[in-house]
């Protein structure tokens, strides 16, 4: 398990290095994409960059804490229930705070704003990992509407409803999607998968087409140039920004998209600015970095010490890598605008903290697998345990 990874000594080091590169790229991009708006809003061009750096530092602290506590302790049902309730309360609290662009998504505290729906994503992953992992261990069937697992569905739907009324259908869908993903890999029967995907599709279409502005969003996504000055504005601006980057980009800092042309230039659409300034080569580089990260995540998941660890690491893969791909696809116009952030690259404190916490959990999965490996090695080497150990290896080889 503790094998060397390419040029890195172990997966842990590889994760840190790739993360560091992404954070440097992200910091530069956040600054480049935000300094105009920061100057305009706060009179300080560095405003967003400073906060990005602060959140990054905080993120490392959170990551460290999560890793030290370890997933085994953190996936206790009582603790998870507490987390669930806290996040739910926070998501109710957002309605107390003023709406931004018509949506109640944030809790505003002096100096920072929190987006509880980001926390909901991790909370669901943890709940799924804990519960489904336990069920897997006991060979209990995982069903959507039957048995213990159906309670998770109820909890998730409650979250979804809360998020839906913010309104933030995109994030709600992601939460549901994460849960569904966890269920699928935890062995959801195929007919339920098909049925669920069918329901999700119908539900998505129904909810989307039910509201005029969402329907417009989808229509505009299909052809943003039909209304480039109004409904398709953001999409068109994003595509112009991306396209104008060409192969090599306009060079750092020289894109025009961020000059109030592209809405959310430093948050959800930061990758468009990145594409404009760094070109297709930059896009490819970041994509490859995320895929490498994903590969290591998957490696950790597949070598997890137990079912909970595996499911948790899988969930984190979806959270980090899945969202990254979704964001790129959204910015590039392959998905409707669903408000999914691109961790490290786009500015977003809550997303950064949650992602770092998730990576902390993932690292603890890795730590656990290393510990288990060591125990086995010790067991192999101890003469009284040799028989058992040999059995295990042969078991692994032949089974």
């Amino acid at each position: 398990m503790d094998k060397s990874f390419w040029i890195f000594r172990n997966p842990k080091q590889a994760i840190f290095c790739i993360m560091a590169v992404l954070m440097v790229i992200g910091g530069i991009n956040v600054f480049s994409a935000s300094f105009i708006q920061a100057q305009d809003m706060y009179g300080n061009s560095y405003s967003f960059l400073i906060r990005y750096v602060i959140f990054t530092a905080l993120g490392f602290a959170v990551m460290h804490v999560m890793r030290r506590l370890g997933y085994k302790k953190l996936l206790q049902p009582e603790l998870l229930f507490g987390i669930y309730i806290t996040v739910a309360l926070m998501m109710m609290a957002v309605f107390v705070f003023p709406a931004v662009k018509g949506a109640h998504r944030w809790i505003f505290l002096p100096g920072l704003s929190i987006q509880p729906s980001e926390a909901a994503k991790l909370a669901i992953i943890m709940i799924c990992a804990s519960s489904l992992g336990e069920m897997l261990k006991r060979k209990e069937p995982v069903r959507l509407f039957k048995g213990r697992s159906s309670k998770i569905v109820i909890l998730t739907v409650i979250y979804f409803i809360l998020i839906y009324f913010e309104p933030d259908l995109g994030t709600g869908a992601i939460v549901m999607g994460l849960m569904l993903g966890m269920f699928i890999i935890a062995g959801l029967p195929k007919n339920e998968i098909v049925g669920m995907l069918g329901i999700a599709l119908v539900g998505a279409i129904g909810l989307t087409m039910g509201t005029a502005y969402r329907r417009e969003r989808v229509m505009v996504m299909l052809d943003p140039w039909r209304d480039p000055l109004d409904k398709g504005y953001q999409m068109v601006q994003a595509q112009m920004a991306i396209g104008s980057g060409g192969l090599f980009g306009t060079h750092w800092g020289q894109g025009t998209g961020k000059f109030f042309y592209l809405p959310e230039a430093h948050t959800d659409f930061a990758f468009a600015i990145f594409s404009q300034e760094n070109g297709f080569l930059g896009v490819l580089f970041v994509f490859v970095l995320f895929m490498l990260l994903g590969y290591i995540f998957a490696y950790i998941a597949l070598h997890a010490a137990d079912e909970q660890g595996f499911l948790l690491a899988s969930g984190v893969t979806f959270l980090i890598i899945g969202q990254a791909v979704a964001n790129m696809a959204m910015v590039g116009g392959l998905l409707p605008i669903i408000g999914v952030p691109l961790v490290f690259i786009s500015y977003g404190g809550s997303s950064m903290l949650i992602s770092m916490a998730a990576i902390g959990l993932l690292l603890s999965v890795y730590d656990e697998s290393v510990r288990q490996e060591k125990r086995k090695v010790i067991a192999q080497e101890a003469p009284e345990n040799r028989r058992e150990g040999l059995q295990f290896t042969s078991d692994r080889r032949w089974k």
Partner: protein
Amino acid sequence: MYNRFRNHGASLKECMTRYVWVCILVLLFGGLTVGRYAWLQLVRGEELRKRSYDMATNKIVSQHPRGKIVDRDGAELAVSIMTGSLYADPEDMVDKLATTKNLSNRRDVRKLAAQLLAPVLKISEAKLLEKFSVPESRFQWIKRSLEPKEEQAVRKIIRENRLPGLHFEMESKRYYTKKKMAAQVLGFVGIDDKGGAGIELQLDKELKGRKTSQLQTFNSRQDRIYDEFVKDPVEVKLPTVYLTLDSHMQYVVEAAVDNAMLEYNAAGAAAIIMDPYTGEILAMASRPTFDPNNIDDYSSESWNNKGVSFIYEPGSVFKPIVGCIGMTNGVVGPNTGFYDSGHITVADRVFRNWDGEGLGNISFTDVIKFSNNVGMIKLGQMIGKKSMVEGAKNFGFGNDTGVDLPGEESGILYAKDMWDPDLASFSIGQGIAVTPLQELRAICAIANGGELVKPYMIKKIVDADGNVIREGKKEVVRNVITENVSSQMRMMMEKVVSEGGGKKAAIKGYRIAGKTGTAEKLDPNGGYTPGKYIASFVGFVPADKPKYAMLVMVDTPKGSLFYGSQVSAPIFRDVLQQILVLKGIQPSSREGLPSLEEMDKLSAKLRSKQKVKPLPKLETLANGKIKLPAFKGVDIRKATEILEAGKLRLRPYGEGEAYQQKPLPGTEVDPNTTVEIWFN
């Protein structure tokens, strides 16, 4: 198999397989996404880059002022300043990107703009609104060449209210500082900085205010961005054109021609002063005239520079030319005798002297002196048709002079099919049409000893750094007569003024040579217009070594006086008398002239006609305060000198002569006070 996990859970390995499949799906979708970026950036990159570029950049055209025209001494005749012109882009006059969901938040920009701008622009609200609402229009002039204060106010309103679709274009506005003076020479500037006539047209390419354009990037709020990458347009300084004109002489000539127009109620007039040796045109006036500052108030006929574009039969002023041709061909000398019976019959046509009287036996000098037609016709017969036409051609008739002014005519010189009566007419300056400048140039050849020079108006063109990029030089087209012939003719022409028909051109103390001329006006449809005459006088001074040659032509003087000797000779005298004094040219003899002191006074008086009043002086009071004088009429340099003497500061506005000041005259101020003075 289908529902394996319905009743029992999946194994970890099975779960991992599913996980790997999901990961592969994510990877595939990621690959699709990268493909999408490749499509956007590599395939459609150029198109999207162009769209993005077009969206964010605009060509900013900077107009630079037109080059100056000054006289030979550098006095400004035409200058340009930049003024802003307001235009609207009606289609853009809506709030576009503001709160797309809330339509009611959009302002009626057009109405708002009309309301706010109407009082500043002094255009009615309804009219503005109408212009702002022109459908499918991207460009509507609202008001051109705003006054600086107006422009500032409008800019402020646009900025403060974030009014979209209203822009300024800087345009060059031409000012002719001396108003009507030398109007036809200078010409005028039409819209879009286009030279319309005169030097403005001739040198339009050189003078035209350059337009420099540069691309400027804008943010979505239409503020300029990336300013650091765009240099401020460096003002393209244009060359200054120095004319050969002498403002003082021009002033005198203009005044004299104005007088003549009034006195004789004439249809038009032209007067030119040339340096006979170099061909420099020192003054050139034409009537009717116009004010190039307001060309729309005048008919286009007044734009014609009669000096180069008016063709007429010269009449007797042509006789010295014919005389020279005769002398050059050796058929006549100053003392050659002619018999004048008062009339002569050529073929079936009878030619008479102007008074019909015969003078009997006279010398050729007398023929010229008395402008004797019979003698001239006889001379013409002696010269012969071929030699006569060749001689006239040699003197530059029938061809344009090549002067650097637009619209020059070449006159009419029939070379073929000349009958005997035609030759007779030609000898007395009929049957040939000339321009005043052609005639004057030919006379200059007599004045300067035989050189036919090319007249010119552009002394030099000096670029912004002071380098002369083009210089007008004396150009001798050819030598037409010998020094001997010219001196003989000068002598004869001097007699015209001292003893003959040009007495009214005489100036006491100076030797003046000249020739009068009266011709019936040509009808544009052929033939003559009876009762309409062109009275002209051409001459030079001093007769022995001429400094100035001048032609005066009055078109259709009305009333009892119409002869050149009566109408044009006095104008010649009035003008040159002033100029000789002004230029300090010493008389040949002091007999009957005022004393030198009186001359000085006269000269000072003439100068003061152009320069006004004694300079204002500061008055320092006992309490240390300074009493301000009235600065009206003082130029910037003088004002600075005066104020510096009293340790006061000047804040000037504009250029030219002071017309307003703050504090007002008589105010007592402390030293170091700033005095604002507006110049015009």
